């Protein structure tokens, strides 16, 4: 039986990418598995009765230490904003390479709370800030200080005490460049340092809330129950900043999606599926069906997606129940093909994720392939010919070449960087000014331009010769030669059309991070939750690998 990889032209459509779910490949899950045998410590706890001050946590193993330095700040309610325009936050964090000295902490106390306008050094690896979910935080302080546990139902509606609003790394604001750390084995997996920061921030939120409650009522206060802590994660508000990232890192994007596709292919090729594995697959789907009922959103777009997902999940579960003989050959392939014919993208992609649950031996080696040394693929192979380039465009961008960019609706938007906040934005080129400063993110349009331009060039012409007169197309030629080697490196859709849902681009990246509870607040930003259900740092030695499917109650 021939089972092939899924076609990038289908997988890389935005509506499909916007239906991806977390899986065992997701970074926060693989991070926890990799850091199981690291030692966790709370090194310093220096807060006042309002939770202001600093706290240091660390992970260490074999003389290697990473420390999270947390700064709790006092801000007024009117200053609290999740938007990138904010200048103050309830807490700010940096992950330090090693053990910070007193002097380091003093230096960082001045700069970390300032975030984008502060300066960091090569000793700091990642930077972040977070705001309280004020209703929930106050409720928890109130309950604990009165000797009670908080109302679980209230907590389940939000799912966290704090929301991060940005996590920076890779040289931003003076942080360590990637080249300084990229060869360290323990953090070779993608976004390990960012995941470590967010995970330890989650612990800070529990320690801070416990401490404030205790200070408020030392005699009566109780600690937040461990099972409740476990059921809380860290929220995150994410805007358009993530969208250019996936366009600007094509080989990295490829490696993420390729790992997912390879996992699916290998699982579909299993001839005899073991009953235990099948049962785990099915029970995880059932758990998810319960879990998804706690996904709250006001977004009609997302509500529809969730309702369709619930209805499709019920269908697939009925279908699995009806299967008398689970021993049929290539069972997972059969289930996958049935899903493609009977279910929507949301559920198909959930099934792809859940199919990985029983197969650590398939998934774990793929995790090591999810990073990328992008510099390696930067140079354009200028001794190739126009014929080669034309073939690449026709083979890899055939769907995109059908888009008519003469039509206004296909050319509606432009991406730009805001001068005020140096952040990506999207706007209507026919209504707003600034499109002359457009960022190079209209890949589909530029591919069409390139295809048209080479249409009357000789097949034998070298790329170097073509470039000498057409350097305005240089960025897109570079991409074309990348997609030849990395088939899942390109979004196979129009990123400037009137039907664009930018949150599809965000969701793609967030699903690989391991985010859940997608809650779009508009077509341009959304809230999510990370690490909800995850073990606490002192429980890492042994934990339930399916923690992400557990529900709060």
């Amino acid at each position: 039986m021939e089972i092939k990889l899924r076609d990038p032209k289908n997988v890389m459509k935005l509506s499909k990418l916007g239906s991806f779910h977390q899986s065992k490949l997701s970074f926060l899950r693989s991070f926890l598995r990799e850091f199981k045998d690291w030692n966790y410590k709370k090194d310093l706890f220096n807060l006042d009765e309002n939770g202001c001050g600093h706290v240091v946590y660390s992970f260490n193993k074999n003389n290697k230490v990473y420390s999270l330095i947390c700064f709790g700040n006092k801000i007024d309610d009117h200053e609290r904003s999740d938007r990138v325009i904010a200048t103050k936050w309830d807490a700010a964090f940096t992950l330090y390479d090693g053990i910070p000295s007193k002097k380091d902490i003093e230096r960082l106390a001045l700069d970390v709370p300032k975030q984008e306008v502060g300066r960091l050094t090569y000793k700091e690896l990642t930077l972040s800030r977070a705001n309280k979910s004020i209703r929930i935080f106050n409720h928890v302080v109130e309950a604990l200080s009165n000797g009670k546990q908080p109302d679980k139902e209230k907590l389940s509606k939000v799912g966290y005490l704090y929301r991060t609003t940005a996590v920076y790394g890779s040289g931003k604001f003076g942080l360590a460049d990637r080249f300084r750390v990229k060869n360290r084995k323990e953090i070779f997996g993608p976004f390990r340092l960012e995941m470590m920061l967010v995970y330890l921030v989650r612990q800070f939120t529990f320690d801070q809330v416990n401490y404030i409650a205790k200070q408020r009522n030392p005699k009566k206060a109780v600690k937040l129950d461990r099972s409740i802590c476990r059921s809380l994660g860290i929220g995150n508000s994410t805007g358009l900043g993530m969208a250019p990232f996936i366009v600007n890192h094509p080989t990295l994007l490829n490696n993420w999606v390729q790992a997912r596709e390879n996992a699916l292919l290998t699982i579909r090729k299993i001839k005899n599926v073991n009953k235990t594995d099948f049962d785990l697959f099915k029970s995880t789907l059932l758990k998810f069906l319960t879990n998804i009922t706690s996904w709250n959103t006001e977004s009609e777009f997302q509500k529809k997606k969730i309702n369709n997902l619930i209805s499709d999940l019920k269908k697939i579960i009925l279908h699995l129940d009806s299967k008398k003989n689970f021993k049929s050959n290539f069972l997972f392939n059969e289930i996958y093909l049935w899903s493609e014919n009977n279910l929507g993208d949301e559920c198909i992609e959930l099934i792809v994720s859940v199919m990985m649950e029983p197969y650590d031996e398939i998934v774990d080696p793929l995790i090591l392939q999810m990073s990328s040394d992008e510099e390696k693929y930067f140079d354009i192979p200028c001794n190739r010919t126009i014929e080669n380039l034309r073939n690449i465009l026709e083979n890899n961008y055939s769907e995109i070449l059908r888009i008519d960019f003469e039509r206004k609706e296909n050319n509606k938007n432009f991406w730009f960087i805001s001068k005020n906040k140096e952040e990506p934005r999207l706007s209507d080129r026919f209504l707003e000014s600034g499109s002359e400063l457009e960022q190079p993110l209209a890949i589909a349009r530029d591919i069409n331009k390139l295809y048209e331009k080479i249409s009357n060039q000789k097949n034998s012409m070298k790329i170097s010769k073509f470039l000498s007169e057409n350097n305005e197309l240089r960025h897109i030629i570079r991409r074309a030669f990348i997609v030849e080697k990395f088939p899942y490196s390109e979004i196979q859709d129009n990123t400037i059309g009137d039907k664009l849902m930018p949150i599809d681009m965000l969701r793609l990246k967030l699903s690989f991070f391991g985010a859940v509870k997608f809650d779009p607040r508009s077509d341009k930003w959304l809230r999510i939750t990370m690490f909800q259900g995850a073990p606490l740092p002192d429980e890492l030695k042994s934990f339930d690998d399916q923690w992400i499917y557990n529900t709060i109650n």
Partner: protein
Amino acid sequence: MKSFSEIETIAKRASRALGYSWGISEEVGKNIKLLEMFGISGVKNFNAFCKEFKGRKFQNITLIAKKNHSNNNHYCPITTGVNFLDQVNILDELIDLEFQNIAFPLLFLPFVSRASEVIGKKIFLKLDNTEFLLNFNQSIFTNLFNNNVINSSKMIHIKFLNNKDSFGESEWKNLLTLSHNTFVDENEGLKKSAAGAGLTDND
């Protein structure tokens, strides 16, 4: 201290702001970062170039020849560099080249360094009295010790160096003989017992 990532991003955007295409600006960002990593003042030179860009005319090259002599204006280091990098597979056959009058020639240097990696050959570059040995884009060996801006060069000579040993046969033999002193001289017993395969393998 600015990170290399910041240097790359800012140089890329500044280049775009001058009017270079996004593709060329990506090259400029990488190059300024590269210069700084090699300890050569990329930011300073690029900043000086940007300051003069609007008020100064540069001559562009499209196809690079063995001898490239500008007319009244200096060659633009960026378009010259981009074309050098793109055409290096053909230029290599010319063995040596010269460029008369390149503005801000240190901005041309990283293109040549990257070209050295592309063709897999070391490149010797002489910028007036300053010499550079470009080693496959892994390092740059130079007698340039100041951190100043170089506004222009009168003449740049470039020579593609053939891949050959930088040492003589006797020097190699001497080291080889020494290295053999780490080996064990096998007696008959060891010959029979210390290797994996059988003594006869006719099965």
